[in-house]
């Protein structure tokens, strides 16, 4: 497989290139590499954190309530940090990349970390399986039953929130159903709830066993039937294919590529692995317009840095602060529609921070760049950096992994698109050591692309 193709596959099926990959797979066919990718990098490693989450805090006296709220906030940050670490370290990067996709698709906010963890584990479990199983499992998750108010959805007082979002955001997409469809679907999900152990239950006395008419079909439907009917409709495959295309292929829609993905998804009865294998093997996936042209999400950007430089933080909250400033916090999507993508990530604040962050994390705040004739000491100042973001880099690991790399190899490893004239200029002028070269490269706008 060609260098650029391997790099592209690493970017999109994982979180950036791997130093040894070019040597290892230069004589292996694309099909074989994709097969190896699915065989070796898809282990399911769920979170197993224990949380001590205070219950019924509204009832507590003032001081205890304050403590309880602090505990809850800490537990959310603990889970968030564990996720950042998993993304940085997991060898199952393909499963993690796909899990992150569904984490945004089934956007859910909760302050209950145990439920958030359980939902995330469920998503991870089904991430590469069948989309039908995934939707159904998510619909039964306590976090989602809470978040979209299905817990309150009862025969006597139907709550339409879940039914509406199931259609608008999780399956078939906006404008493809009527208000009547929403009402009927809501009835089918009445009584779906969970018990004290966080296990799904149907509360029989709250479930509406009556006849419903949904998408022109009539029957004593329950939630499972509603999901089946939605998936029988090819518009659901198209909606999911569009989102997959935006996440794995290009920020801009390409109708024929999307149709091709939708066909595979639909004809394989919503088999996610088969669909992804199709994408990663397709010639169009490696077309110039799809390579190095996507803007990394903040999590992709941060995870890339973490994986390349094995960064460890003095302050555990540092990554939480960074995620906030960059505009994407794991487990805290902006709303049920999930995160936006592409250019939406970029404004003057977020961009300047992205360009500045590598130097803050890797080099105490200074970007080690100077032009010929400059007084080095004046330029490479040891900035104080941001104390909250103080971090350490495993430079030994980096130097070892790139020991025989030339400057060109280093660029190949870290940067995907062709360098712009500006960036070329900067790279030509570099006469710094490898560490500083690497820091400059990951501070380029080009590093924001994958």
């Amino acid at each position, binding site marked *: 497989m060609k260098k650029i193709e391997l790099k592209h596959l690493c970017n999109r099926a994982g979180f950036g290139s791997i130093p040894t990959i070019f040597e290892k797979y230069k004589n292996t066919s694309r099909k074989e590499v994709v097969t190896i990718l699915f065989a070796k990098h898809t282990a399911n490693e769920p979170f197993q954190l224990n949380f001590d989450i205070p219950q019924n805090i509204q009832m507590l006296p003032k001081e205890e309530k304050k403590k309880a709220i602090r505990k809850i906030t800490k537990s959310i940050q603990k889970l968030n940090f564990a996720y950042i670490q998993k993304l940085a370290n997991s060898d199952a990067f393909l499963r993690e990349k796909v899990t992150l996709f569904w984490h945004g698709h089934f956007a859910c906010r909760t302050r209950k970390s145990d439920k958030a963890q359980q939902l995330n584990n469920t998503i991870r479990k089904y991430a590469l399986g069948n989309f039908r199983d995934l939707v159904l499992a998510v619909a039964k998750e306590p976090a989602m039953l809470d978040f979209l108010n299905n817990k309150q959805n009862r025969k006597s007082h139907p709550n339409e929130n879940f039914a509406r979002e199931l259609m608008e955001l999780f399956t078939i997409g906006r404008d493809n159903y009527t208000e009547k469809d929403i009402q009927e679907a809501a009835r089918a999900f009445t009584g779906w709830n969970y018990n004290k152990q966080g296990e799904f239950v149907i509360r029989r006395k709250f479930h509406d066993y009556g006849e419903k008419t949904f998408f022109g079909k009539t029957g004593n439907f329950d939630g499972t039937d509603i999901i089946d009917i939605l998936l029988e409709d090819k518009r659901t495959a198209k909606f999911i294919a569009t989102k997959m295309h935006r996440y794995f292929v290009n920020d801009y829609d390409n109708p024929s590529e999307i149709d091709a993905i939708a066909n595979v998804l639909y004809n394989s009865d919503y088999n996610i692995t088969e669909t992804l294998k199709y994408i990663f093997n397709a010639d169009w996936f490696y077309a110039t317009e799809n390579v190095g042209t996507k803007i990394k999400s903040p999590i992709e950007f941060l995870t890339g840095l973490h994986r390349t430089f094995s960064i460890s933080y003095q302050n555990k909250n540092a990554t939480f602060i960074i995620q906030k400033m960059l*505009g994407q916090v794991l487990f805290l999507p902006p709303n049920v529609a999930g995160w936006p993508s592409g250019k939406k990530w*970029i404004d*003057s604040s977020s961009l300047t921070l992205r360009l500045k962050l590598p130097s803050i994390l890797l080099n105490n705040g200074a970007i080690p760049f100077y032009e010929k004739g400059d007084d080095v000491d004046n*330029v490479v100042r040891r900035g104080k950096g941001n104390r909250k973001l103080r971090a350490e880099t495993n430079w030994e690991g980096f130097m070892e992994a790139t020991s025989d790399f030339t400057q060109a190899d280093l660029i190949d490893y870290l940067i995907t698109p062709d360098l712009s004239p500006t960036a070329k200029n900067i790279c030509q002028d570099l006469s710094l050591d490898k560490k500083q070269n690497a820091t400059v490269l990951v501070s380029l*706008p080009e590093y924001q692309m994958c």
Partner: protein
Amino acid sequence: MKRRDFLKTTGVASVTMLLPNFLKALEFSPSLTGHKKLVIIQLSGGNDGLNTVIPYENDIYYKNRPTIGIGKNEVLKITDELGLHPSMKGMEKLFEKGYVSILNNIGYPNPNRSHFRAMDIWHTASDSNKYLDSGWLGRYLDSNCQSSHEVLEIDTTLSLALKGDAKNALALKNPNSLYQLTKEHYFDSLIRNTSDEMLSEDNLGYLYKTLVETKSSAKYIFNTSKTYESKTEFPKTDIGQKLETTAELINSGLDTSVYYISTSGFDTHVFQEKQQEKLLGNYSDAMLSFVEELKKGNNFKDTLIVTFSEFGRRLSENGSRGTDHGTAGPMFVISENLKKNGIFNEAPDLINLDGNKDIKYHLDFRQVYATVLDKWLEVDSSKILNSNFQHLNFI
């Protein structure tokens, strides 16, 4: 026809075409917006409207708030039924001068009581069951402005309200910090060596374009504002400092038309009295200094200040001397020549509540947006809000 009017009618595209060089276009193009300034103040967390504008003659209010209700003798009475929170002496002064219009019961259909979702709705101006990923002021920027600095947020990160579909506004904590950052050697080299051909519409071109624009805006803002220093003392609070920066930018003659400021802490579930007293006091003191300073610069007459919170709070207090998330709440509109000052519309109806025992909304917040866009900024609100909302005649 005035030059500005000409530019307004001919639109952004033609002006850009007249100027071949991208950088030149940025540095020399005149602003397409008028000289009117809009300042939006966001009170994050859901300010308790009923303890801000207090219905001190209403028994139901006192019955529902036995411990946190504010006594008739303490409130700053502004009409025979409504009074301001005792900490808002500054606002009372502004009110007496006729600079304030209080809009009661502002909300929207099917209100959402979650902070982030409610804030989303206020920022994007969407219906409560629709999801937009651009903000109303971002879309104003898209359709009516050239440079991102024409809409400014005084903060380190940019809020959704100021993100457009094509353009994003600029966020800065103060003019100096952003300017110094773009002057750093590395940024400077990146920007100085960027050629016009690189500023294409593709994603990488967009990054370089954003950088060049940031530099150009930061330089313009820094150079315009560096000579001006406020002549009024501002409180050393978060909102005081942000409003001082805003006043200095306005008085220095910056061509920015919208400023956005937020201040937080209003989520008062527990022991709300002290906390709200401090926050409203900070808000009101800062506002008094702000108006005073704008007057010194002769800019108050051209400035409209609009304050909102994502929701009001429940009528009945909870068990911990606080209040839980509610729905409709008041908005403050402040300017020198309001068409209708004082209390704009009827006080909250505490008898006819919604199913959750919350106040029902009477006016949609997007009516306020539409009024401000059409009648103050003089642009077409229907394009920005994707719908026509009936105007309110406060300006």
